[in-house]
């Protein structure tokens, strides 16, 4: 087979589904996106974005690859052990898709630098596993008015959702920041055990949440209909074994859910505490919480303080 020249190769890579979406190429190539986390979910997601033709991907992670990461990362080989996760992701994607510009950021994201790090990104993907950081990212996305996807995986379970207020609920409508604060103060010094929990991951579930988020981003950025707004996608094969509701992995994914979200799900015949749904993949309808501290009626909006 005759190999095209390098420029043509890059063009083919950066054109989703071949020539079908010719017009979208420039849009994706020129829309910067921000990926928080370059762990199992983040590295998978960056690869998917690169293959789709996203031309400017900033990936942020301050962690290093250790032995426990090797069974759940698609990108690096053993030679990346000890390397920063974002740098490892950048180096691998540059090999697979040389035309894609991946910028690695090795800083620890916090409230003071999040706005600068996210910069002019047109979409924010959150694959962090630290709930505290997730609230910071959500606040940044809402303030910047950019769409924001969350992805989480544990064991054989995964979930994904896209937020873009005021068109949709926000992350704070679904996850309770106060609950996190209560847990941290309630555990006192024992909070160390809670923070250092290492959750199990099954590689087969890694790409489920990321695929939903990447496709949703594609639809939003290209103005397609039905981009998955106000939907919470939950995939679970664990339930077939029963008793997962009390495992640390399941709890880690669900324990911060707001009462508002839990009640919405109950009204759809789905209970996060027990009985749960009846399908492998649940598409739960979500709605903004009128009492949401970030986007609700009583939230302090820009300018309110004046």
């Amino acid at each position: 087979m005759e190999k095209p020249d390098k420029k043509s190769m890059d063009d083919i890579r950066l054109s989703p589904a071949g020539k079908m979406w010719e017009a979208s190429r420039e849009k994706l190539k020129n829309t910067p996106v921000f990926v928080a986390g370059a762990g199992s979910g983040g590295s998978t997601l960056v690869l998917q974005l690169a293959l789709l033709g996203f031309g400017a991907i900033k990936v942020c992670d301050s962690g290093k690859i250790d032995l426990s990461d090797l069974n759940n990362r698609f990108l690096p080989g053993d030679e990346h052990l000890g390397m920063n996760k974002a740098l490892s992701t950048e180096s691998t994607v540059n090999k697979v898709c040389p035309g894609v510009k991946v910028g690695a950021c090795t800083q620890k994201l916090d409230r003071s630098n999040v706005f600068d790090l996210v910069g002019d990104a047109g979409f924010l993907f959150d694959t962090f596993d630290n709930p505290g950081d997730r609230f910071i990212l959500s606040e940044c996305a809402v303030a910047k008015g950019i769409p924001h996807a969350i992805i989480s995986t544990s064991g054989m379970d995964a979930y994904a959702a896209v937020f873009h207020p005021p068109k949709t609920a926000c992350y704070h409508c679904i996850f309770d920041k106060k609950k996190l604060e209560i847990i941290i103060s309630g555990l006192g010094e024992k909070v160390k055990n809670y923070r250092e929990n290492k959750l199990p991951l099954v590689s087969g579930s890694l790409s489920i949440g990321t695929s939903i988020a990447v496709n949703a981003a594609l639809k939003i950025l290209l103005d397609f209909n039905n981009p998955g707004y106000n939907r919470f996608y939950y995939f679970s094969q664990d339930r077939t074994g029963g008793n997962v509701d009390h495992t640390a992995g399941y709890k880690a994914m669900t324990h911060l859910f707001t009462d508002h979200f839990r009640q919405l799900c109950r009204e759809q015949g789905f209970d996060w505490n027990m009985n749960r749904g009846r399908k492998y993949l649940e598409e739960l309808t979500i709605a903004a919480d009128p009492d949401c501290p970030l986007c609700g009626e009583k939230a302090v909006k820009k300018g309110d303080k004046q």
Partner: protein
Amino acid sequence: MIDDFGDNFEAARKEITYAYENVRFFRKHMDEAKLSPEDIRTPGDFGRIPPTEKKHYRKNFPLDVLAKGYTLKDDRLTRFPSAGTTGERLMTVELGLVYMKRAIETMSVYPLIHTIFNRQPLNQVRYAPPNCSDVECANPYSTMQDRLLRDGTLVLAVYHDLLTTPEVILKQNIEEVEKHQPQMYFIDSTHLAFLMRYMRKHGYTPPNGPLLSSYTPCTDVSRRQILENFGRDVHFSEVVAMSEMGYMAMECPVGGLHINTKSYHLEFICNGRPAEPGEMAELYITTLDNGCIPHLRYRTGDVYRFFDSQCLCGHNFPLIRIEGRLRNFLFRNGEIVLTPKELDGIVGAPRWMDMYKMKQTDENDFLFNFIPNEKYEENNEKYIRDELLLKLGPGADLVMEKVDYIPTERSGKFLACVSSEGEKMYSKGFCL
């Protein structure tokens, strides 16, 4: 079995020997089964001891269940009367220190509450059915001093039939809470949710302090109302306790219910065998403290599931879920169709509801009463009806009624799920 005895087996053996040598009822119980403490050599032998039940302790109280050396006049003993939910009250007396030790061990799952509980002096408030208190709190003429216990607990006044409590008492409750400035609350959640509604209406937010919810299982509807009024900053923990034992299990900050395996030896029994993780099972409990009234393989009548997974909080006490009392389960054709806990999962915490009660009155007849509030809109309850009909199965006749009053049980406790079929099955000796 929850930990295959682990370190508890030797302690359980000592308790058996202690009870055999010191408690007349237990010696007779073992003799009738042709067993002596020496026969219990391995964890497997433990199951040979016939279970003990409430009726044994009622019938033999006080002389034959009190260990040698104790009398009811003993100053070291405290009385713990049950509320009498099953129709007859059961009196337990025990060394106060034994109960305290069990409570402190149990509270270790919630470090912040554990720390506050150990502070002295500690202003506490109790708001629970009158039968659960050892002072006269159903009397509207009692004063604050009458209801102030030696340990700093103020027992708030309440009528036996909760919803009939007159406004004058509710007003008094607010004044007393404000004066006492509690640092911790021991409450029945349905009772407190009722008081919260009144407080909210009058714009009163009580002083912040951890809430320990016990006496009856906490419904999500009650929890929502309590948290709404206290604010989301409050530490709320559900506690499982029995008047016979004291504290047994407690909810950790992450929301896992952990059972104390340090103070008790536990057996979860299903079909006469140790249950598997996640299976519904009755809890049998054995005390380990060589106290005044030892309980050996004591049938609690409560159904749980235990789990062998680690909790996010990192505490090692096993996780459980309490399904409720077997006699309150909904049955059809001799099979369990819904437990009180499962029912509560279906109802959830809708903002338009203040209280609910499910009553099975016959094989196919179910009455779901609920008290709506000002947020209620026509047909809000549809999702509950749909899910209930699915669970109850074909042919079930479910009536859903909006009401403005729901009575408490005879004991003064409020049960969100009662069942004539459950009672029948239980009296016929239905066991899991």
